[in-house]
C-alpha cells in the first residue's frame, strides 16, 4: 500500500505561536481522509504544509513521494482549495477555466463547464458577483478539473446547502473510486464525513490525536456503561479516553488494550461523532450511544433514536 502522505514530527511555529506540534501521520493511497478538529487546532496549517504553501519549522514530510517543492510536475499532482476560496473576484468562471488550461498540464475544461451548467451557475459573470455557495462550487469544480493525485480541501462544503453538499461528496467518492485520487478534507460536519470518508486525522490543541482508517479506529474503541464505582481497574487495563460520571452511572470511552473482562460494564460500539467529541474534550451524553451490533441493554430501554440504515458501516462501500 503506497503512502500518499507521510509526515514525521512535523511542526510549524509562527514567532511565539505553535500552530502544529510534532505531527506524525500517514495517509494511504485512495483514501478519503477526514481532517477534524476544533477551530484553531491546526487543520489549515497542516493542509498548507502538505500543499507546500508553508514551510515547516521542524520535522519531515513526504507528499506524493517527495517533499513539497516548486516543481511543475509536483504542483500538477496536488489540488488545494483554501477556506477563503481565493478566486479573482473580477474574472469570470470562464476566465478561471481558461487560466487553468494555460497553467496546468492536465486540465479538463469540459468537466468544469458541464458541472457549472448542471448547477446553473453562469460562467460569464464575475466571480465576485456570485453568491458564496456558487463561488464555492466554481472553486471545487476548478480544483477537480486539475486532475491531481492528491486533493487537499479546507472546509470545502461549508458554504453549500445540504443537497449540494451531498452531491459534491458523491462526486468526490466517484472520482476516488475511479482510481488515482486521494482526498484529505477538513470539515466540522462529521455526519457528512461519515458518509464518504474512510480515513481519519484528528487534530486538537495543535497535536494529532488520532490517525488511521476509520473502521480500524472504531474497532479499537468501545463505550463502557456501568454503575458508578471505582474504575481504577479499568483504567489499569484499558486506555480511558473519556469518563463521564453521574451519581447513578459511569460512562467510559476506552481505547481497547485487550478484551473487557469486568462484567459490571456494558460494552457497545462507538460512532464517529462520539469518538470525535470524546477526543476533543466534549462530554459524551450517557444515553446517546445507539446500539448497533450489540443487543439492547437489559431493562428494555430502547435507544433514544433509531440508527440510520446508511450509517451502518460497510453498506455503502
Amino acid at each position: 500500500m503506497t503512502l500518499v502522505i507521510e509526515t514525521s514530527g512535523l511542526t510549524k511555529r509562527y514567532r511565539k505561536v505553535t500552530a502544529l506540534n510534532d505531527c506524525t501521520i500517514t495517509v494511504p493511497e485512495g483514501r478519503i481522509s477526514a481532517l477534524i478538529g476544533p477551530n484553531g487546532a491546526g487543520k489549515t496549517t497542516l493542509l498548507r504544509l502538505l500543499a507546500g504553501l508553508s514551510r515547516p519549522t521542524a520535522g519531515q514530510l513526504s507528499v506524493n513521494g517527495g517533499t513539497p517543492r516548486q516543481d511543475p510536475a509536483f504542483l500538477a499532482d496536488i489540488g488545494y482549495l483554501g477556506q477563503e476560496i481565493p478566486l479573482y473576484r473580477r474574472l469570470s468562471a470562464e476566465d478561471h477555466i481558461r487560466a487553468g488550461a494555460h497553467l496546468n498540464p492536465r486540465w479538463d475544461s469540459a468537466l468544469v463547464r458541464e458541472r457549472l451548467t448542471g448547477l446553473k451557475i453562469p460562467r460569464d459573470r464575475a466571480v465576485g458577483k456570485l453568491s458564496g455557495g456558487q463561488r464555492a462550487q466554481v472553486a471545487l469544480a476548478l480544483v477537480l478539473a486539475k486532475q491531481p493525485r492528491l486533493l487537499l480541501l479546507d472546509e470545502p462544503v461549508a458554504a453549500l446547502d445540504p443537497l449540494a453538499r451531498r452531491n459534491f461528496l458523491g462526486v468526490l467518492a466517484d472520482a476516488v473510486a475511479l482510481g488515482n485520487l486521494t482526498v484529505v478534507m477538513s470539515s466540522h460536519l462529521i455526519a457528512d464525513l461519515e458518509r464518504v470518508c474512510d480515513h481519519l486525522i484528528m487534530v486538537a490543541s495543535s497535536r494529532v490525536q488520532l490517525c488511521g482508517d476509520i473502521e480500524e479506529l472504531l474497532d479499537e474503541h468501545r463505550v463502557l456503561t456501568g454503575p458508578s464505582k471505582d474504575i481504577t481497574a479499568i483504567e489499569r487495563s484499558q486506555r480511558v479516553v473519556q469518563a463521564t460520571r453521574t451519581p447513578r452511572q459511569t460512562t467510559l470511552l476506552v481505547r481497547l488494550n485487550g478484551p473487557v473482562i469486568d462484567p459490571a460494564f456494558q460494552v457497545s460500539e462507538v460512532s464517529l461523532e462520539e469518538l470525535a467529541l470524546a477526543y476533543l474534550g466534549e462530554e459524551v451524553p450517557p444515553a446517546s450511544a445507539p446500539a448497533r451490533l450489540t443487543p439492547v441493554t437489559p431493562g428494555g430501554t430502547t435507544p433514544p433514536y433509531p440508527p440510520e440504515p446508511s450509517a451502518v458501516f460497510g453498506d455503502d462501500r
Partner: protein
Amino acid sequence: MTWLVWRQHRVQYLVGAALLAAFAVMIVVTGTQVSDQFHSAQAACAAGQPCQHLGGLFMGSRVVGFLVIATLGTPVLVGLFWGAPLVAAEAEAGTTQFAWMQSVTRKRWLAVKIGWMLLAAVIWGGVISALVTWWASPTNAEQLNQFDPGRFDIMGIVPVGYSVFAVALGVTAGALLRRTLPALAVTLAGFIAARVVITLWLRSHYISAVTTTYNVLGNFTPKGAYWQFASGVLGPNGQQLPQPNNTQYFDNIPQAYLPRACSEVTGPNGGNPTPACVQALSHFHAYLTYQPGDRFWAFQGIETAIFVVLAAALIAVTAVTLLRRDA
C-alpha cells in the same frame, strides 16, 4: 501564464496605451508647429536678414510646455499604478494562492508577471521620452540647455531607466508590505527620494568636471549644450574673489578688488579700460567649471545604468522574499 497576466492587467495596459496615444497626438501636433516656426526663423536668418536671437521665440503653447515639464512625474505613475498593486493586490485578496496552486512555480509566475510589467514600463518611458526629445529639439538647439537638471531628466534614455526603477520599486514595496496603499506611499516617497538624491548630488560626480581659466577681459563659452557648475574670478594670488552681487564691479570683479589702475572704470561695461588697467587685469583669471556638452550621452548612459541596477537589486529582493516566504 502570459494569458493570465494579460487578462488580469489588460485594463491597466489599455489605459496606459490610451494616455500615451493622447499625449503623442498633442505633442506631434504642437511639435510640428514649433518645428515649422523654428525652421522658417532659421531660413530667414540664413537668407541674410539679421538674425534675432531665437531664444525669444515663443516655442510651443504654454500648456504643452507645462505638460512636457510634467513628464518628470510620468515614470512614478507606472510605479504606483502598475508596480505597487502587482503583488500587493493579490496578496491582499489572497489570489496568489490560486495562481501558486496551479502547476506553475512561483518563480515562473513572478518572472512572467514582472517581465511583462517591465516591458510595459520600458515602452511607457521610451515613447514619452522619444516624443519629448523630438518636441524639444528646436528649443534645445536654440537654448542649449538640455544638460541642465530638469531638462536632462525628461529626454534621451533616462526616463526609461526611471520607469523601470519605479515599477521595480512598486513591485518590491508591494511584495514586502503585502498591502496596496502602504506600498503606493512607499513607492512614491522612495522614488522621489532616489531621484532627488541622484539628480542633486550624485549626477555632478559621474565624471570629473572640467575647469577652464581664461582672461577676465575675454569671454569663454564652451561649445554645445554644456552644464555649468560654477564660474568666477581668481585674484592675482589665486584667491577666489566673491561674487559681485550688489556692489559695483567690472568684468565680474567687485570694485573693492580692482587694481588701482582700473579705478576710473566704473559700471558693468562702462568705458574702455586703459592699457595700464589691461596690464593689471592680466593677473586676474576668470574660470568656468562645467561638464562639456559632448558628455551628455555618457551621463545619460551612466544614470540609466544606475537606475537599472537599482531596479535589478529590487527585483532580486522581491524574488527572494516571495520564493522563501510562506504563501
